[in-house]
């Protein structure tokens, strides 16, 4: 890991003021978008960005404890199925579905967390990868509940009003602000201090009184619960859930979003999400080359910006400051 505090974009721990003002300005601009642009495609893309941002930020939370999960989309899928089944099979309101979408993956994470979080580095990556595959297989095989490989069709919107893309845009923006705001607050609290301490030196943190395993399990369960809510928002948005939407490929996408954006601050996965979802849309003019160009750009970013896109912003700011200083 490179230097964390080099990045001025860092949501500095326990600092109030500026990051909060910037975040508020960004949210205000995003809230104005539907008033200016009525394009359904843009608004739908906006909803996808917010939902993916929640998922990526929840993975960031887990990554901050020093564990890169390659099974995060599985928990997202569990949340999606839990919500969809709660609404469609039990006939309960969407709010109950969201609650189920948080609780189900959270409980599963609490069950496996104490075991898998003892593993470090590549072993944790491998085990979560396998776990993701197992969950996907359960989605495929448990046909009576999940509809098997065909998935579940005809999922209703959370409420009739949300058939309107602008309304869903606001719903997912609201959820994004709430959940990413929660993660930001958590990381800026004493819990965040402990999380960083554990990642940087687990042994030292443990000997300073930080209950390492309990902290890791708690954060893992929270991250999995939050991504479950993202899954619910996605399921009721695209009106369809199936196992491939929550496969290891999707888990890998969430990791890539974090790597591209930067893994040292919460801003990283947000920037990464934007980049990962918007850039391919901008390359639509070159259909045959779209994936190749995108792949090359990803490689360039990873090769030259080990700290992610956030590092680019950091370097630019430093340059500006140096110019201003001299």
């Amino acid at each position, binding site marked *: 890991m490179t230097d964390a505090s080099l990045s001025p974009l860092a949501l500095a721990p326990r600092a109030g003021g500026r990051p909060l003002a910037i975040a508020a300005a960004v949210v205000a601009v995003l809230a104005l978008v539907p008033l200016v642009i009525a394009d359904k495609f843009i608004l739908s893309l906006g909803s996808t960005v917010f939902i993916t941002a929640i998922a990526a930020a929840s993975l960031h939370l887990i990554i901050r404890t020093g564990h890169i999960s390659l099974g995060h989309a599985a928990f997202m899928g569990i949340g999606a199925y839990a919500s969809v089944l709660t609404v469609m099979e039990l006939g309960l309101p969407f709010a109950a579905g969201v609650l189920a979408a948080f609780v189900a993956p959270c409980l599963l994470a609490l069950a496996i967390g104490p075991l898998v979080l003892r593993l470090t580095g590549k072993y944790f990556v491998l085990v979560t990868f396998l776990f993701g595959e197992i969950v996907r297989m359960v989605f495929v095989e448990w046909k009576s509940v999940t509809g098997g490989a065909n998935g579940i069709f005809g999922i209703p919107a959370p409420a009739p009003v949300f058939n309107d893309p602008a309304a869903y845009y606001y719903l997912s923006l609201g959820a994004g602000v709430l959940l990413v705001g929660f993660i930001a607050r958590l990381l800026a609290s004493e819990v965040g201090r402990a999380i960083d301490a554990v990642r940087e030196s687990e042994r030292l943190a443990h000997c*300073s009184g930080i209950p390492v395993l309990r902290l890791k399990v708690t954060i893992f369960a929270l991250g999995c619960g939050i991504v479950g809510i993202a899954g619910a928002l996605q399921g009721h948005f695209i009106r369809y859930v199936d196992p491939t939407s929550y496969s290891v490929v999707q888990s890998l996408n969430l990791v890539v979003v974090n790597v591209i954006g930067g893994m040292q601050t919460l801003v990283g996965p947000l920037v990464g999400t934007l980049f990962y979802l918007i850039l391919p849309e901008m390359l639509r003019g070159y259909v045959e080359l779209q994936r190749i160009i995108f792949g090359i750009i990803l490689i360039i970013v990873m090769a030259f910006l080990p700290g992610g896109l956030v590092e680019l912003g950091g370097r630019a700011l430093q340059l500006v400051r140096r110019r201003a200083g001299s």
Partner: protein
Amino acid sequence: MTALLSVTSLHRQFGGLTAVRDLSFDVAEGEILGVIGPNGAGKTTAINLVSGVIPPTSGRVEFRGEDVTGLPPHRLVGRGIVRTFQSTTVYGDRTVRENGMRGAYLGLYPGFFATLFDTAHARRMRAEATAVVDELLDWLGLTEVAEDKAGSLPYGHQKTLGMIIALASRPRLIMLDEPVAGLGGGDADHVRDTIKRVRGRGITVIVIDHNMRFMSGLCDRVLVMHQGARLAVGTPQQVLADPAVIEAYLGKRHAALAGH
């Protein structure tokens, strides 16, 4: 004498190797106990067992009359037992002050929801912890570098910071694993003074080293370990006069030196 720490028949096996065997000793409140012995004598393992970093195979550790055998480190910190590490262990990318704050975690963490909402209670705890850390930085002379990265400090300062991290939890017993390893003579003298000042605050100290000269000028009593077991215990003078110690530790060393 009531012991602050009482270790009875501590035993630790790694596969076929017995790292610590039948180790018993007491530490009185306010004492500086040295643990000395050649490399591989089991000193660090003994500290790891007492500080909960690894659980003992058998035996008993009592702290202030309570059985704390096998408790994990974070629980022991809560009871007042801390330790430092042989290799300098600081959070290199963080400021000196932040390092101290992390050491003060137990006095800082007000509970999940309290810290999330930054309640008055949380702010009060943070103010207290900040005061504790600032006082320690001042006391051990690191205030000037408080905003510097810990990794940029000279080696001696990093060792001091390691001690500050441990002291920030306001312990009753601090265990120092080779606090002068890799330091020059002048720095070693400085560390010795620092340890005495720590004891002056009423904190009991266990210090590991293999340098008898350093230890005899510092410790009230010395525990000599050899091949995982206790060879002798007593004042530095008593221990130095013990024929078993001379033969097993100093004797061997002298013999080895003479042989070259």
